[in-house]
């Protein structure tokens, strides 16, 4: 079940669209925020709130890469390895995360502090290599800089 705050947020968003169905993507985002990840319960809440069949909600949700379908760490490291980042050393940074933090692409550290998601281009190619940690952009990455950044996330 959604919290009251989530229902209120969803109702506000719903007003922007001519149909409830169009609010499905934002509703899944809200569910992700509420439940941490998109469990069956989370989809149930979405389906009930919008009056959309659960199978449809889940079918749509699983199409998109940014919806999380398993529990992830407290902080999500989203590192781009597309071409502009790759030619400036992004793959070495993937190795660094593996060696230093035991963090594999798609994996989570045992303490649940970090998960690593490999991204396609995140629009920071001019300051490559780049990553997002949760909602924050970090650019011109080096190994030392990554250490410094990750130190801030507990």
């Amino acid at each position: 079940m959604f919290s009251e705050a989530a229902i209120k947020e969803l109702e506000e968003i719903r007003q922007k669209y001519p149909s409830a169905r169009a609010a499905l993507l934002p509703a899944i985002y809200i569910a992700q925020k509420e439940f941490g990840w998109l469990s069956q319960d989370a989809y149930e809440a979405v389906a009930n709130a919008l009056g959309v069949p659960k199978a449809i909600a889940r079918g749509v949700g699983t199409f998109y890469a940014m919806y999380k379908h398993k529990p992830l760490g407290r902080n999500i490291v989203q590192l781009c390895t597309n071409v502009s980042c790759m030619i400036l050393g992004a793959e070495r940074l993937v190795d660094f995360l593996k060696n230093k933090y035991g963090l594999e692409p798609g994996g989570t550290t045992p303490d649940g502090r970090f998960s690593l998601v490999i991204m396609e281009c995140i629009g920071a190619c001019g300051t490559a290599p780049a990553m997002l940690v949760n909602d924050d952009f970090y650019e011109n990455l080096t190994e030392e800089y990554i250490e410094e950044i990750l130190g801030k996330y507990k």
Partner: protein
Amino acid sequence: MEKVLLKNTENPNSADINEYKKVGGYQSLPKAFGMQPKEIIEEVKKSGLRGRGGAGFPAAMKWTFASADPKSPKYLLCNADEGEPGTFKDRQILEKNPHLLIEGMVISGYAIGTEYGFIYLRGEYPAAKDILNRAIKQAYDSGFLGDNILGKGVKFQLAVHQGAGAYICGEETALIESLEGDKGQPRIKPPFPVNVGVFAKPTVINNVETLSNLPYIIEVGGEVYSKIGSPECPGPKLYCVSGHVEKPGVYELPMGTTLREIIYTHCGGIKNGKKLKAVIPGGISTPVLPPDNIDCKMDFVNMPKHGSMLGSGAVIVMDETVCLVRVCYRALKFFEHESCGKCTPCREGTEWLRKILGRIENGEGAEGDIDLMLSVSSNMLGKTFCPLGDGAASVVQNFVRHFRPEFEEHVKNAKCRFK
């Protein structure tokens, strides 16, 4: 050239409505409302403005079709999905000049005859989302959006719709599906969105940069605008340059500036004095160019004459240390990941090509693998449902066309010498 799209963006508060107004912002709106919608479309036609999202379609033509359709309401969608690898130009406008886009959208909405606009923003731009939402609120509070804009009775409602990480949603019909709350899979055309678009209503979809040209076109008139840059497709253009140049970044230059001038004059040449090996001129889906073919004018008309495309104006520069097999492999990995799965040639072809490229790069390529790639890719070309599959196939064909010896060397020596 005076800056139009990036005007005032060196100001750290440029996204604020007051800073925008200080440099003449929202001055084109009253002027536009003093014109008939048809007159605005006529100015845009005179300006020669072409869509900046990749295809270069004349903006006025799209608007004419949509405004002529009797169905209502109509919709104006701004494509801010910016997913083409190498592209980061729209982000500059979204984060630093959001009111320019909003003013452009109100003008376009008025010209087309629509009261509803959405900005489809990629999920990977959380900062832009906050900045846009703040700017939209400011615009509502100042009477530039809402039910009675400037007290003139003009209505325009604007909202941000956040994508969730799917490159294909940049394709306009997939974007529509996604906005309607569905998987982002392209629709068959016709009917075209200008007649049957989002919620089955006439819909105009334009790129962020395209719509951001509107205030300036209204300010100076289509005639003056059309004198900037290439006569066949005029205007200011944002080129975003990444990779091995001294000064990567977004450059606003006249449309048709040559690739050589962009790389060597504006970006300070190749990083650390190394040699240029290859350039992808318009985002990863556009054909790669060898170094002896960079005297081409970067616009929609001239790039095809040089065997490539302007695309999104995303220039990726690669020096002599780069393994092009690896670049091609990474590109195909991207296309495989982003293929929406709707049609077989793309869904299966991208995976197959990625696998072949992977084994060549790993020194496990077999005799005949290169020709196999050419055969697989030519079986995709022209047979896919949308341009994503075509793009993937042509990436492989062009890398092999220009750099075949490097692929052959990987196979022959059973290793990659760049590792």
